[in-house]
């Protein structure tokens, strides 16, 4: 019984690793760029790009092979002189806004930016009115 359970357990652990490739990572998947300024540029960008294979991880945080291949794309494009914004746009063209963690004001996201400002404004108005009322009462 225990043996069967152990075999099942090991099989369950072995399964996910069987569904991975065995090729070495792309050249720039784990290798930083020689120029620290360029590497910082690439790293900042990679922190705000979503790994497509994993939930809630940036490609900088992920060890998924595809995230490594995306890091290779980012680093080689930075090395070739492309701007981070152009690389982000290139990826968004392919995978949509889903691939980017950088919040952007657009037709569907503007309420996220407008509502908090509106709420602060309403709160300030209410507060002013109440304080004004209290002052009037004190004076009276």
């Amino acid at each position, binding site marked *: 019984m225990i043996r069967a359970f152990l075999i099942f357990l090991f099989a369950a652990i072995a399964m996910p690793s069987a569904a991975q490739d065995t090729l070495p990572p792309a050249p720039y998947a784990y290798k930083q760029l020689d120029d620290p300024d360029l590497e910082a540029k690439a790293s900042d960008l990679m922190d705000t790009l979503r790994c*497509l294979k994993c939930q809630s991880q940036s490609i900088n945080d992920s060890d998924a092979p595809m995230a490594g*291949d995306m890091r290779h794309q980012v680093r080689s494009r930075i090395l070739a002189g492309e701007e981070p914004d152009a690389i982000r746009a290139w990826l968004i063209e392919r995978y949509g806004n889903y691939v980017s963690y950088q919040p952007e004001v657009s037709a569907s996201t503007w309420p996220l930016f407008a509502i908090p400002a509106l709420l602060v404004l309403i709160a300030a108005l209410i507060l002013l009115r109440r304080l004004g009322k209290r002052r009037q009462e004190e004076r009276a």
Partner: protein
Amino acid sequence: MRPVFFIPLALFLFFAGLAAYMLANGRFETVPSGMVDKPLPEFSLPPAVDGLPGASQANFIGGEPKLLNIWASWCLPCIAEAPQLERLKEEGVEIIGIAIRDRPEDVADFLSRYGNPYTRIGADDISELQIEIGAAGVPETFVIDGEGKIRYQHIGDIRADDVPEILEILEDVK
């Protein structure tokens, strides 16, 4: 208490409920490619296995619409997809494969086990074309028309009931 005092509580409960619902059901299961209806990007990949040529963008220009199948020998759903690709091949569809991060011996082994529906297989060792074409995983299949334009994307393995739809799309984009 005036009913108006309950508005904040109601709002809070609404958002808490929405958050719980989205946590349980939300999340996009698939990431559609923005490259559909755009030209197939320029690429040229070496052969992924002995005996079959590699693949390039030029292979898609001219002639009938073709399928570009992104797959890998290490991908389990690709095994489930194999019979459907075989059926599409029997219907006369040309399928060009792109093997993602694969070894020639593993590709050969996969083809000998599950059959070979491909006329060509390009080796994409660093997911270059996969990213360029906007495929988020394996397998994915793209319909490319005779002018080399991407016309349709199928995400995940092709099931038996997807075959008629894909044949129809191949016919439509002729």
